[in-house]
C-alpha cells in the first residue's frame, strides 16, 4: 500500500498527534477532529501528515485527502507566521472589501493563497466571519479588524511587522 512507503519521521510532533489519535480515534467519525489537531500541531497538512492520519485511523489515503481538500479550513501548503484573512461576503463586498483586497495584494506583493517570501504573512479570503456589522472586516490570526479603509489596513499590517521586529 502507498501509505507504507511514505517515510514518517519519529519526532515530538508526530508523537503528540499519535497520542491525540489514540485518545480520540475510537469515537465514530474522528477524521475531521483529528485533522483539526494535526493542523494545529504542524501548521498545515503536508502529504506525509495525511498519510500518517490515514494509517493511524485505518482509512484509505484518498478519503483523508478528499476531506482535506473539501474544507476551506485545511491547508496543504506551509503558511506564514500570520494569516491575513479578508472577508469577501456580501456585507463586506457592499462596503468595499475588494478594494481592501487590492491594497493587501499590493502591500504584500502576493495573490490570494500566497505567502510572503519571508514567511511572515499568508493572504487568504473568507466567506463571512459573522462580524458583518463591522464591515469591511479582516482577521489577522484570531484578531478581528473592522471598519477597514486602505490606510487603516496598511497601518495594521505595518504595526504588526514592526512589533515583531522590535521583539
Amino acid at each position, binding site marked *: 500500500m502507498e501509505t507504507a512507503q511514505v517515510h514518517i519521521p519519529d519526532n515530538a510532533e508526530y508523537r503528540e498527534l499519535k497520542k491525540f489519535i489514540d485518545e480520540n480515534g475510537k469515537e*465514530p*467519525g*474522528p*477524521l*475531521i*477532529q483529528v*485533522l*483539526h489537531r494535526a493542523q494545529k500541531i504542524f501548521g498545515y497538512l503536508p502529504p506525509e501528515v495525511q498519510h500518517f492520519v490515514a494509517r493511524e485511523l485505518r482509512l484509505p489515503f484518498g*478519503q483523508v485527502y*478528499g*476531506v482535506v481538500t*473539501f*474544507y*476551506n*479550513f*485545511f491547508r496543504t501548503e506551509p503558511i506564514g507566521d500570520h494569516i491575513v484573512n479578508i472577508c*469577501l*461576503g*456580501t*456585507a463586506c*463586498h*457592499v*462596503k468595499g472589501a475588494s478594494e481592501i483586497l487590492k491594497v493587501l495584494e499590493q502591500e504584500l506583493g502576493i495573490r490570494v493563497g500566497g505567502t510572503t517570501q519571508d514567511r511572515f504573512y499568508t493572504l487568504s479570503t*473568507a*466567506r*463571512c*466571519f*459573522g*462580524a*458583518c*456589522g*463591522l*464591515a469591511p472586516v479582516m*482577521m489577522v490570526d*484570531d*484578531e*478581528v*479588524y*473592522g*471598519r477597514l479603509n486602505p490606510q487603516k489596513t496598511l497601518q495594521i499590517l505595518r504595526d504588526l511587522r514592526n512589533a515583531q521586529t522590535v521583539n
Partner: protein
Amino acid sequence: MSIYRTHILVPVDEGTVQAGVFEVKRRLEQKITEQGLGNEVKVVESGTVGIVGKGVILVVYPERMYYTNVRPGDVSLIVEEHLLKGRIPPTLKYASLDIQGGLKSLHNTGLTREQKRVVLDKSWKMSPEDIREVLATGGYKAVEKIFTEKMTPEAVIDLIKQSGLRGRGGAGFPTGLKWEATRKAAGDQKYIICNADEGEPGTFKDRLILEGDPHKLIEAMVIGGYAIGATKGYIYVRGEYGLSIQRMQQAIDQAREYSLLGPSVLETGFAFDLQIKIGAGAYICGDETALIESLEGKRGNPRIKPPYPVTNGLWQMPTAVNNVETLANIPEIVNRGAAWFRTMGTDKCSGTKVFTILGHVEQPGLIEVEMGTPLREIIFAYGGGVAGGKKFKAALLGGASGVFLPEKLLDVHMDFESLKENKAVLGSGAVLVMNEATSIPDMLFSILKFYAHETCGQCAPCRIGTHQLLQLAWKLREGQGRVEDIDTMLNLAETMQRTSLCPLGQSVVAPVKSAIDNFRDEFERAAGHSEIS
C-alpha cells in the same frame, strides 16, 4: 447572594473586544472598588446587546442607560458622576445614537427601540459564563418543569406543535412535526443536532445566542432529546467562531457539574449528554444532510432525499437537526405555553424573528421583533434608514440565497407566507441594505462568486452551472456581455433549480431572478444595449 442597586452590563463580542472592552472593564472594576461601591454596583460581562460598530458599550441597569464608544478615559467620569452622584455626564455619548446633551427616551430610536425578545431575552441580563447567574435568572426552569410536572415526551411534542414554532434556519418546517417524526421513527439510538454552522453571509444571529446565552441552547437540547428519545446531542459550530466554541464548552462543563447533563439529568434517570463538533468551513454544511456527513468525518456532500434525517440521519439513525434560533425558542414555550407564543407574530408564523441589519444603514446590528414586522420598519425605525442621507435602492433578504427587493416592496411583512407571496424568502434573517450608488450586476457577481466557490461539486448542474453563471456575470461586469446573456443566466438558474441535488444549487435562482427581474435596465446598460439610458 448579595443584592446590588446597580448592574453594569459589559457586552463582549468581536466588535467590543476590538474596541478594547477588557481594558474598560478592568478600569471600571478598579474604579468601583476605589470608590467603595463594590457592594452596591456589580459589573457583569454579558453577551451582545445587538449594537455593533459603536465601540465599547456599557448598559447601566435599572436605568437602562446605554453608553456607546466608551474609552478607558471615560470610566472615572461614569463612576464618579453617574454611579456616585446619580448624574449623567453630559459630555459622554450615550443612548443608541450619539446624542449629546439631555437624556432622550432610549426606547424609541434605533437598535435600542423596544423589541419583543424571546430568543435573546436574557443574553444581556446575566453573565453567560456563570451558571449560577443563569439559574438565578430562570435558566433550566423549563427542564425542571417537564420533570416535576411529569410531562411525557408526547406532551412536549404536542406543546411545540401547538405553539406553531417553525424552523428558523430558512425552510420554515414545523419543529413539532420534525420531533414527532424522529420520535416515531424506528432506531435504537437517536440524535439531536444543533446546526450552528452559521455561514450565510450577512448573518451572525446564531453566534450571538451561542455567546450570549449558551445555557439556553443546552436547555433546549435536553428538552428536545427527551422529546424525541435521544441520549446524545451534537452542536456543530463553525471553526471561525472561537468565542462561541469556548463559551459553549464552558457552559456544557458547568451543566454537567450541576447534573443538567449526564447519565441522569436532575436525578430523573434520563440520560443525555452533549458534544461540540467543530466545522471546517464549508457553506454546504448548512444543509442538514451535508452537516450529518461532515459530523461523520466525511466530505460534506449532501445526501439524496428521501430518506430524510428524521429516519436516516447520523449513522443512519433517526436524527432531528434544528437551527440555533429555533432551539432558543423552546425553553420559553415550555415555561409560558403555546398560547402565549401564538400571541406573537402572525397566524401561520408565530413568535419572533432575529434580523441582522447590514450594509448602507445608519445603525447596523441585530434586532428581534415579531414575525410579520414590515421590512420598512426594520430598515428605517430600527436600522435608522439609509446612511449618509442617500436614497434606498434595494434590500437583499436572507443572505446569498436571498432575494433582491426593490423599493416598491418595502412594505412587505417579514414572515414566511407574506414573503413567499412576493417571491422572496425569509432565509436566515439577514437584511442587507444597498443605497442608490450600488451596482446590482456587481452585487450579483459577488454572490455568484460565492456560489462558485461553495458548490460541493457532487452534482453536475450545480458544479457547472455556478461557474457558467459566474462567467456570464463577469462578462457583464467587464462590459463584454451581450443582452442575450441576461436571459441565458435566467435560463441556467432555472435549470439548476429543477435539476440540482440539494438546496444550494436549487436556490441560485433566487438572487439571479430577483436581480434581473427588478433591475433589468441595469443589466442591459451593463451589456451596452440599453434602450433606457
